[in-house]
């Protein structure tokens, strides 16, 4: 392959033929250092191959020449992408002396998209292109229907092994690329159905009208993604499980000029925010200048409205902070622009200068108009932000108060009642572990008492732990401080008493077994409740307690910061040795522990009123920048979608009161 300097050639009159293919340097380097071009050689890099080919078809669609894209994953690991576009040019490329399609397939950064004449606002502007897919594939079969013929050519590891051949006459048009990723390059060549389906659906939402068929022959499924609703439909999909505060979503559209915006916004009763942003269909997972512009516009516009409507307390200079405005927001933002600049080859953050101010101005102007024209909508949106802002300040005051009262034996009951009372409404959805049946079964397995035992579930929540012992005990009694929880647990336990674990309202030796879970870390002076539990147990009785603990001392400080930001009521970051000492120190004997590791998406777990928006962001940042010593012992994963999954180390302790 020869190296050729960048020579912009122009596709005269917007035609798409060999003369509109621009040639940049060759692609030997791609196989040598694949991560430089596709980001990584893990599954994410593997999927990027599919995206690159699909992006080419999307470009054809944007140029108005393609309406159907068909993606097939064969059972033997081939991926094929077919479209009904114009077909890659097959005529001779004057400069290279071979068919233009071969130039596109074998030359790095060659393609119509590098010349503004052929494609406007192409997805792959600084993308790696189809030649990288070719370079990183064991075999690649190219089929082109164009110029009254069906043309084929075959490649191996990026090199042509046949000449471009006209098989027969055909009136069809389009391109099919069928490739087998090279297992000597990739850690895995197993495509993920879920990840590809998600991306193809996303593309269908971003390009209303386009018909994308996805056949996965490995599992015999065929899905069709076609949406006329565009990003408004996308928002509806994202908010399917949430309760919107207003319908329909706000829509802000700006066409023409150097920058086009299609934006949909909808606030829900959720606490987290979800901003999905795209630049020329590329998912900018880490946002960038366009998202910063949006955030500024929201802050400007909503504060301006609130001030004008007299909703802000002017005397203390009240102003709604950006993260309060973002609380509960679901947003899809699609930007189209010429020559966007991204950070890194995987294009996850837009860095183009100037975009922020343009987006800010365009969005502010339209948002001002929307709020000005619809007083009811404005009340909902501005009211939501004000509530979030005032709740955050109130929470800060509450935690200050909690700190102050900590000088006494324990935090005032009121604080716990308030926190868990609010959360009781969606208790089982507020964390995956609460109703996880395998975890509950682990607790039940620890049961050692004879049948017919009398059980007390302390700080019982909804009573699921006590309920897990159902078939072994004769009577299940619950204890909780929060009236809402007492009511909730009543559905599962025989009787529920409202009261505090610091002073359990039962006489000595009342129960055969006491259970609780993930509670003692929330209590100052946890030795006191443990001794209360000891007191109400009969001699020989059993205490079963589950607790999330750090994997070792190395992830302790990091986990402390994560947990404290999630839940300000944390008073103890126990480590295994502390927990053992606390139980044995209270007089318990016969200690046994089993460990159960459970994956949990932190998005669920941090989406509650206890966690402020600032803290939610800080928690994410702690995962993204976890210190090496914590990462070495504590497994967690950050998915391409940005979702963070953490592995929780559940330790289930069983101890006995001496006979």
């Amino acid at each position, binding site marked *: 392959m020869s190296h050729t300097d960048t020579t912009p050639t122009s596709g005269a009159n917007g035609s798409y033929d060999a003369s509109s293919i621009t040639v940049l340097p060759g692609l030997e380097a791609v196989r040598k250092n694949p991560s430089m071009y596709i980001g990584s050689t893990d599954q994410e890099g593997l999927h990027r191959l599919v995206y690159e080919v699909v992006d080419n078809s999307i470009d054809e669609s944007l140029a108005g020449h393609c309406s159907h894209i068909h993606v097939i994953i064969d059972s033997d690991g081939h991926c094929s992408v077919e479209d009904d576009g114009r077909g890659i040019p097959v005529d001779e490329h004057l400069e290279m002396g071979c068919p233009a399609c071969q130039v596109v397939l074998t030359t790095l950064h060659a393609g119509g998209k590098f010349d503004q004449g052929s494609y406007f606002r192409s997805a792959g502007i600084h993308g790696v292109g189809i030649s990288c897919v070719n370079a990183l594939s064991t075999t690649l079969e190219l089929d082109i229907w164009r110029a009254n013929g069906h043309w084929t050519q075959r490649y191996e590891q990026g090199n042509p092994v046949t000449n471009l051949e006209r098989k027969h006459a055909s009136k069809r048009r389009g391109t099919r690329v069928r490739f087998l990723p090279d297992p000597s390059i990739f850690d895995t060549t197993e495509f993920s159905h879920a990840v590809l389906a998600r991306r193809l659906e996303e593309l269908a939402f971003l390009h209303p009208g386009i018909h994308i068929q996805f056949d996965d022959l490995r599992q015999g499924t065929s899905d069709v993604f076609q949406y006329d609703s565009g990003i408004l439909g996308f928002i509806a999909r994202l908010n399917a499980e949430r309760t919107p505060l207003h319908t329909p979503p706000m829509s802000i559209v700006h066409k023409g000029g150097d920058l086009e915006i299609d934006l949909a916004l909808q606030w829900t009763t959720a606490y987290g925010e979800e901003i999905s942003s795209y630049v020329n269909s590329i998912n900018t997972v880490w946002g960038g200048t366009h998202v910063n512009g949006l955030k500024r516009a929201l802050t400007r516009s909503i504060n301006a409205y609130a001030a004008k409507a007299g909703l802000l307390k002017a005397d203390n200079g009240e102003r709604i902070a950006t993260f309060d405005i973002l609380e509960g927001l679901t947003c899809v933002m699609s930007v189209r622009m010429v020559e966007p600049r991204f950070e890194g080859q995987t294009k996850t953050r837009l860095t183009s200068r100037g975009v922020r101010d343009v987006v800010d101005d365009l969005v502010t102007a339209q948002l001002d108009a929307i709020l000005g024209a619809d007083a009811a909508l404005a009340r909902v949106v501005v009211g939501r932000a004000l509530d979030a802002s005032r709740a955050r300040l109130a929470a800060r005051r509450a935690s200050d108060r909690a700190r102050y009262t900590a000088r*006494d034996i324990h935090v005032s009951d009121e604080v716990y009642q308030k926190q868990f009372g609010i959360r009781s409404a969606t208790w089982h959805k507020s964390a995956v572990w609460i109703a996880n049946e395998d975890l509950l079964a682990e607790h039940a397995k620890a049961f050692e008492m004879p049948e017919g035992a009398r059980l007390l579930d302390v700080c019982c929540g909804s009573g699921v732990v006590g309920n897990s012992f159902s078939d072994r005990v004769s009577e299940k009694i619950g204890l909780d401080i929060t009236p809402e929880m007492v009511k909730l647990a009543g559905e599962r336990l025989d009787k529920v008493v409202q009261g505090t674990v610091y002073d359990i309202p039962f006489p000595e030796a009342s129960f055969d077994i006491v259970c609780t879970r993930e509670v003692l870390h929330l209590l100052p002076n946890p030795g006191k409740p443990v001794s209360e539990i000891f007191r109400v147990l009969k001699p020989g009785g059993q205490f079963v307690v589950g607790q999330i603990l750090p994997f*070792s*001392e*190395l992830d*302790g*400080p990091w986990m402390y910061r994560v947990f404290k930001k999630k839940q300000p009521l944390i008073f*103890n*970051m126990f*480590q295994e040795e502390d927990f053992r000492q606390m139980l044995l120190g209270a007089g318990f004997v016969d200690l046994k522990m089993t460990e159960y590791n459970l994956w949990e998406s932190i998005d669920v777990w941090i989406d509650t009123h206890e966690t402020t928006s600032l803290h939610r962001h800080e928690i994410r*940042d702690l995962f993204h920048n976890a210190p090496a010593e914590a990462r070495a012992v504590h497994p967690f994963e950050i998915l391409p979608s940005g979702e963070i999954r953490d592995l929780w180390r559940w330790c289930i302790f069983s101890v006995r009161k001496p006979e």
Partner: protein
Amino acid sequence: MANLEGLETHKHLKDAFAEEAVTAYRYLYFAKIADIEGQPDVAQLFRDLAEGGICNAHGSLDFLRTEGDPLTGAPIGQTDRNLHASLLAESTEFSELYPDMAAVAHAEGFPDVASWFETLTKLKRAHVQLLREAIARLERGQGPEEGGE
């Protein structure tokens, strides 16, 4: 350079080192908040200032290197000395500094702060072990990386 032992300037170099180090880490903390608030320009300013702060802290350490560790007074300079000085500092943090702080936090009624200091105490114990192992490897004449099987 003349011996700084016992002079005001020696103390001032240690103060300057601490001041700049604290400043730099404070700025990095502020930068994160600015990022979250959607103020990338301010975040970048803080990051740039932090980078300068770290350079400045190291500038004072350039002078102190021949005088002794600003934290422990132990000799520093070459890696073997630096490891020993680090072991001394981490040992003190593990055995005295953080346990004492935890005790005071308990006494003053701040169990969560006490738990934080206790969590740090345990981490420091792990650090002491890591440093001991590194020193042992060095003394056995092996590099810090054992690599391979």
